[in-house]
Each structure stands twice: as C-alpha cells, then as structure tokens.
C-alpha cells in the first residue's frame, strides 16, 4: 500500500512495508498527519516530527527492530516514559537512530519510492534553513 508524502514544496510516495504491521496500521489510522519536521541532533542525516496523540503515539515497543535509517526510510520511535511523544523519522543520508545514551531501536514503516531526490533536498535543507512542514495522507498515492 502507498501513501502520499509532501515535504515543503516537494511531493512523493511512501510504499508501506509489512515488517511492523501494527505500527503501519497505527500510521494509517493516524492519517492525515501534518507536522513540523526538524533535523535530528544525534542521529545524522535524518529529520523527525513529534507525534503527541493518536494511534502512533499509543504504540508499544513490540515491533521495534532496527537502528539504521536508510535514505528514504520512514520509521517510528515509540513513546516511552522518558520521551512521551512518539517520533516519525525520515532519512536522507547516513543515519542511525541515537540518543545521548546511545543507539535506540525504531520500527520500520516504509520507504519513499517516488520524489526521493526532491524530498531529500528538502530534508537536507532543514540542517541550514530550519524546520519544514511534512504532510502524510492517503490522497492520490496509488
């Protein structure tokens, strides 16, 4: 299944994977999502958005399985006591999910398949220009 992604003025498609079905279901139940996407401080070439409520914010950690965030990969870091908001993360280069205390597992949701270059450029720009708006939706992604 595919969903639409828009970052700044660039649009693309995210192909959802089946590695973490409950997490993907929670993402679909949370759409549409409009959020401020900021550059990561600890994790490298990736951006993140806080998700403070809804099914994604209520996920448990049973499907977290990776720390690498490959270019175009969309992952979720589930909420926990130390960080009560979940985070959606999107990679555009070398990235690994890290906290000050070390690596941190995340759950795989999918990968940007269309519009990668333009969206990567938008993500990369946040390191210099500051946050950008991301919208995830079901609109015209098939």
């Amino acid at each position, binding site marked *: 299944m595919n969903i639409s992604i828009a970052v700044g003025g660039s649009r693309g498609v995210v192909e959802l994977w089946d590695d973490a079905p409950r997490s993907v279901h929670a993402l679909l139940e949370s759409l549409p999502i409009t959020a401020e996407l900021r550059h*990561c401080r*600890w994790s*490298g070439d990736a951006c993140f958005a806080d998700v403070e409520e809804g099914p994604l914010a209520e996920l448990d950690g049973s499907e977290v399985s990776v720390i690498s965030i490959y270019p175009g990969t969309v992952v979720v870091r589930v909420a926990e006591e130390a960080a009560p908001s979940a985070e959606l993360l999107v990679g555009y280069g070398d990235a690994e999910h890290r906290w000050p205390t070390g690596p941190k597992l995340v759950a795989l949701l999918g990968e940007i398949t269309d519009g990668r270059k333009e969206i990567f450029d938008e993500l990369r720009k946040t390191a210099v220009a500051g946050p950008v708006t991301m919208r995830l939706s079901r609109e015209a992604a098939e």
Partner: protein
Amino acid sequence: MPKRLRIEIGDGHVAEAAVHDAAAPALADLLWRALPIDGTLRHVRWSGEAAYVLVDALRDSNADPENAMSIYRPGAIILRPEHGELAFAYGQAQARDHMSRGAAGCHLATVDTGLESYLEEIARTRRSGAQPLRLRAA
C-alpha cells in the same frame, strides 16, 4: 596572559571566550593563526546540542591530541582538527560522527562573557537555521 576570543553571531550578538593556550598550545596557536574567521554556524547532526563551523585553516589530520574532551559542556568550544571543525556546545553534547559514538576533540576555549545569551544564540540554529559567525582576537 591567556588569549581571548571574540565571537560574533548573527546580527551582532557578541561573547568572549578564554582560550586554553596552556593546555592546548599547538591547537590554540593553529586557531590564532587562522583568525579572523568568517563562517556559517550550523547545528550539528550527530553530536547533540551544539553548532559547528568548518574552517579549512583549522584542518590538520596529523595534529596531536591536546586537552581532550568527549562530553561537551555548555559554553565549551571544541576543535576537531581532523575535520577542521569548531563546535560550540549549548547543552548536552558529545564528540560523535557517523562512525563513532564517543570520539574526542580538543577543548580549546570556554565562553565566560555574555554566556547566557550566547547559549540562546547557539541554540537558535536548531529552529531558525544557520547564522553568520565571526571570530576575532579580543
């Protein structure tokens, strides 16, 4: 008398730092010879709550380690000569990159004048993007 560094960020915010030239004589000298420095201050991507500037004149892949620091304190200015990188910590930060989760840099200077607003200006690079940076001898 220790060297002092004048730091100007953005539209003219000024702070000063004491350079640790006794603890890091070779790298403090490298910094002094590189002045004046005009660059772009950007938020780090791997190292936490800090911003950085890349300066070709500070790049030295053969430099010996001096006054090594891995965990950065707010107000610390750290040189990683292998990258020609000066880092300016405003919160919890560490020398890290895509290969390592705990390297070290040279604790080259510490901001001691105008610290509170300096930390706010450095932190602003996270939400507002890059800022012009000017370094001079004070």
